């Protein structure tokens, strides 16, 4: 049988197909179709069928990542959404706790505030109140709720978010409202904060619930349209969607909690890296995805991506587990420029796909990072996108000369080198952010680059951070799409605790766990996962009493005993010390949230067939000239497809594959692992 991964990006849709038995892999790219989102993805499916000669019934698994949710929020193209909330609090979302959550430049008097997610006239209040301790001090006025709902219907509202104050402590009023709204209105998408994010702090909870509502109708529609159209093609495969947490979910779940798709796009790549680590037995990896407009970094430990509980999108905080990805505006298409004091800066402006870098010859005149890499030899003009697309070195050099070299009074080569090194510094900083700033030493990790431009800077970055080796996976250019077909099913659930460790009763906590685990298990069963492939993970968010931020601590499996509860405090203290270098004595550890993750272990990592060297000698296909930091170096060129398992070559050398080139320095060495990954041991300066 065959698996397909589809990754819909801003410009291109990448498709990967793997044959389970032979390990054979096919890949292709088709244009994304923003106006008719299913079209691009389905075109891609057709294209990969043609390329591989597959029949629809041979496909048994489709994993699909999409930026549809992200774009909907950023472009304001979601459903017409209303909010129903506690009397006195309809402005919570607009007030944003009086704070500029984006922390944009505080010296900018002209900062923009994004349009409200829900216009004020569609934010309705109802009489009800729950106290902080869960006492219902005012029951919900149902008549009033009906009136408000009628007004919303009249205004043509498509989706309603319900978020009442203190509902994570006692959700009775909110549940009553949700039931009533669902009873009375069939055509509105209704979602409640206790379902989406039952967690204290009303601003974040409201945003999360509202975003879920905004996405609800259209994302759900997309998931069912896509699935139906796939079925119409005769494909009987299970269809899954990639969530921000790096796990897949069936279309039915997208209908209920589309907010989990918010960071679907970049999650695929990080998940693929995690799988690769598991397979290679790599304990920790820094994953770096360099595309056209950005460089995205995440951290993988023990074969799983590091997670965070919330993200900020367009200044709105959304609390939903997502992979901790740091994104900076330094991609291949980022424009390099000289500021008024003669400093070289990169981005945030990008040449994007159109006109693209100057070397694309599509009218771009400003130099990009790719143009500089081309001039220096790190990008091969003749093999870009498999040689189907020749790059214009003269145009790149002219752009660099006019915009960088001349203003700085240096030659083109020196200017290009400077841009490359500044880009390296920026990217290295992002890599430091996910390691050093999280209390990890980069020297304990390997670097796994992917994305179209990922290999181009990889070895330099590893050297800069003293990362001992680089592992270059097969098909780095479509690695994100690959992630869609190797991921597991994940279902994240949470409940509010807000108690000191010594106030927690193991029995009561066990009940909360059981309830969540049962529900999560049911969801996975609905998604077609057999019981023996379902695993549960339990975690709690903890802090020292009074702190505002939490750290996640693993909780024991099985029936909880007092000792398991006591262990929470100790584990937290150790983790706090590791990261912050101090203990707080005399303060209890407080548990804020319980988190349950149900894993449906359906993901598989397929490797291309093992290639053995049968007595033939490995020979380079020619020579390349590369401008290294200390001058031009002539080095042999190898084709990646000529390399066989067990090969080991000393640098300097260049390895080329479809659309990318990796330069390996004089002190480095490359070996071919048995899954066709290149393992580069990075020499020290």
């Amino acid at each position, binding site marked *: 049988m065959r698996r397909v991964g589809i990754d819909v990006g801003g410009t291109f849709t990448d498709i990967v197909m793997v044959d389970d038995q032979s390990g054979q892999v096919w890949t292709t790219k088709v244009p994304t179709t923003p106006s008719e989102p299913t079209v691009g993805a389905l075109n891609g499916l057709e294209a990969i069928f043609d390329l591989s000669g597959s029949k629809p019934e041979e496909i048994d698994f489709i994993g699909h990542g999409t930026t549809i949710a992200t774009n909907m929020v950023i472009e304001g193209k979601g459903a017409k959404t209303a909010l129903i909330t506690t009397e006195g*609090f309809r402005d919570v979302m607009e007030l944003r*706790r009086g704070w500029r959550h984006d922390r944009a430049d505080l010296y900018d008097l002209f900062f923009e505030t994004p349009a409200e997610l829900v216009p*004020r006239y569609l934010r309705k209040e109802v009489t009800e109140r729950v106290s902080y301790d869960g006492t219902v001090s005012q029951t919900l006025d149902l008549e009033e709720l009906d009136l408000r709902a009628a007004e919303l219907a009249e205004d043509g509202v498509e989706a309603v978010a319900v978020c009442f104050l203190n509902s994570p402590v006692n959700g009775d009023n909110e549940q009553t409202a949700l039931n009533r709204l669902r009873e009375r209105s069939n055509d509105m998408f209704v979602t409640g904060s206790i379902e989406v994010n039952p967690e204290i702090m009303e601003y974040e909870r409201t945003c999360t619930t509202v975003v879920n509502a905004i996405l609800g109708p259209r994302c759900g529609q997309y998931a069912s349209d896509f699935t139906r159209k796939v079925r119409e093609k005769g494909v009987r495969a299970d269809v899954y969607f990639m969530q921000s947490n790096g796990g897949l979910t069936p279309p039915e779940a997208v209908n209920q909690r589309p907010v989990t798709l918010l960071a679907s796009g970049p999650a695929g790549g990080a998940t693929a890296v995690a799988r690769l680590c598991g397979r290679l037995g790599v304990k920790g990896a820094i994953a770096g995805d360099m595309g056209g407009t950005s460089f995205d970094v995440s951290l993988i430990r023990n074969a799983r991506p590091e997670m965070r509980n919330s993200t900020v999108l367009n200044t709105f905080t959304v609390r939903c587990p997502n992979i901790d990805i740091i994104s900076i505006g330094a991609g291949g298409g980022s424009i390099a420029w000289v500021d008024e004091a003669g400093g070289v800066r990169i981005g945030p402006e990008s040449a994007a796909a159109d006109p693209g870098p100057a070397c694309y010859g599509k009218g771009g005149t400003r130099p990009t990072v790719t143009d500089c890499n081309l001039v220096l030899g790190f990008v091969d003009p003749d093999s870009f996108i498999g040689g189907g697309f020749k790059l214009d070195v003269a145009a790149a050099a002219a752009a660099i000369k006019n915009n960088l070299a001349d203003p700085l009074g240096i030659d083109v080569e020196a200017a290009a080198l400077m841009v490359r090194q500044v880009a390296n*510094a920026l990217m290295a900083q992002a890599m430091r952010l996910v390691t050093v700033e999280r209390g990890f030493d980069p020297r304990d990790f390997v670097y796994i680059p992917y994305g179209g431009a990922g290999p181009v800077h990889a070895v330099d970055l590893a050297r800069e951070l003293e990362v001992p080796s680089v592992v270059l996976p097969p098909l780095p250019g479509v690695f994100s799409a690959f992630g869609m077909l190797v991921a597991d099913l994940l279902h994240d659930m949470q409940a509010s605790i*807000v108690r000191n460790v010594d106030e927690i009763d193991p029995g009561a906590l066990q009940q909360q766990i059981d309830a969540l685990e049962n529900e999560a298990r049911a969801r996975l069963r609905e998604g077609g996962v057999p019981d023996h492939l379902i695993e549960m993970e339990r975690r709690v968010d903890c802090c020292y009493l*009074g702190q505002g931020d939490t750290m996640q601590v693993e909780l024991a499996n099985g029936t909880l005993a007092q000792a398991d509860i006591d262990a929470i405090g100790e584990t937290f203290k150790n983790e706090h010390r590791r990261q912050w270098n101090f203990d707080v004595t005399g303060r209890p550890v407080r548990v804020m949230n319980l988190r349950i993750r149900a894993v449906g272990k359906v993901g598989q990592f397929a490797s291309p067939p093992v290639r053995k060297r049968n007595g033939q000698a490995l020979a380079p296909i020619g020579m390349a000239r590369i401008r290294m930091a200390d001058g031009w170096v002539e080095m042999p060129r190898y084709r990646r497809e000529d390399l066989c398992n067990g090969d080991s070559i000393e640098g300097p050398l260049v390895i080329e594959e479809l659309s990318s080139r990796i330069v390996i320095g004089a002190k480095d060495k490359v070996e071919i692992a048995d899954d066709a990954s290149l393992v580069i041991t990075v020499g020290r300066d």
Partner: protein
Amino acid sequence: MDKITFEIVRSGLYSVAREMKVAMIRTAGSPIIHSGGDASAAIFDANMQLVAQGNDIPTMMGSAVISTKASVEAIGVENLRPGDTIISNDVYLGGGNHQPDVQLTRPVFHKGKIIAYTMTRGHWVDIGGTAPGSFTPVTWDVHAEGIRIPPVILYRDDKPVEDLFRLIVNNTRDQDTRMLDINAQYAGCFVGAKRIEEMAEKVGPEALAEAMKEALDYSEKLMRTQIERIPDGVYEGSDFIEPVQATNWDKELIPVKVKVTVKGDKITFDYTGTAPQVRGGVNCPFSVTCNSTWFTVKTITDHTIPINQGCYRPIEIICPEGTLLNCTYPASVVSGVTETSPRIIDMLLETLAPALPERVVAQSNDAACSGIFSGKDPDAARVASLRREHVQYIDPHAGGYGARPMRDGVNAIRALVGNAGMTSVEQVENFFPLTIESWALVTDSGGAGRWRGGLTAERTYKVHFDEANLTVIAERGLVPPKGLLGGKEGSCFKSSVTRSDNAVESIPSKGGYVVVHRDDVVRVRPAGSGGYGNPTAREPARVLDDLRNGYISENSARDNYGVVVDTASWTVDEEATAALRMTMAQGKETASA
């Protein structure tokens, strides 16, 4: 030096400063630090020049320029050892901005030589003094504003100096939280120093020093280019600051004055003519005046210039000692930095509007507008769980932010020099014996204009303390935020207590503390903000939107904007609007004739 090492060090230092702030926020105990972000981190070179700062509270940064130097010089560079960390808060002995902002300063050593300093600053919820929360302006002198900590060494060999710790902590209320906050600030300084040591190891201490020096020159150069673009000339402005409103105290508004001279790539601010310092906490130490000035210049030139002390070199500030804006011992200062300083910035923006009409903002709420409740928690279960009995809660309140050319103001936001956010409603209710009954935007509080001023919001608290001490401190209770170029003014600050017998007592912007009891209802509403440009030039569609969303009233739509709306169909009555606007224009002509 080579541009690459320069760029690596320069941008690396900013990222270190950010990391310091993160360490602080994630480990602190005061909600105003971890939820409100009222804390800052910066890096100084070996000459105590600020070379990098996080995207933090600007008001803390400017004064750190002065207080870091003061801290180090008070101890003496020669007396500093690896593992030392200095603490200070004092306005007169340590260059501070006000007593509740406490600074930790740590020398960074490489092979026995100081190569840099890291500093963190946090707003402590209490620093002692006459009233809980240390924020009452009704004080005779600085001693009444809380413990004065001159620069002293709080950590030696990376171990706390226990006696000093105890002395300081016991002079503040809510000691447990204080311990967390100090630890957090220390963690920030420590992690920053470690990163800089690593950097020195990597590029060499000489290159590091050289890069720091160049970073300062680089920002200075960019700033000079920008100042050259401001038309040369002398611009004069003045305004009035609100006095402390206590029985038998002088209640006259306090005049402030400025003369701005722009000449080539230099800009001079002369505050001569400003009133002498006054009794009560509204005075600004010189560090605060410098910060207000520096902030303004940075914002009206190019906010993207990498910020460091180099930006301030082309700026000269003249202000006679003993005045409101350069006060001397023993003047009280608590609200100088939070309430007076933003007013100075507003005055400067208005003064420079003729030179740079496209770069300025109509006047805003500006004030921190803090509300502080302090008392005994009557909830026994919570007392046991949270392990404290006496509680203190402080929140700044967000008001309107003024309209800008081509852009409306912003509703209820903390902007300009203070950027601390507010505590979540649910958190407040969880931790303190208070219920928040509502928090809502106030219709018509944003000044009308071609671009509308931002609205303020009002928070209503119900008191569950048996008895509590309440300090409310704000600005613009008497002087409303002005509009610009035909824009109208915004609403004033307003606060009150409604007693359980329904008697309403109003709370002035700078009065003494108030005692509140169970079931009293407290309202706090900061000022709104001014509009920009003539309101009758605003597109009727925007006015319609504003009306439908309740940002403005029907009266305002008609009287200020000249727009007539059919509220049944939510459409603009084009004809009636045209007629009304015509009449308004004629009325104006008649009036001016």
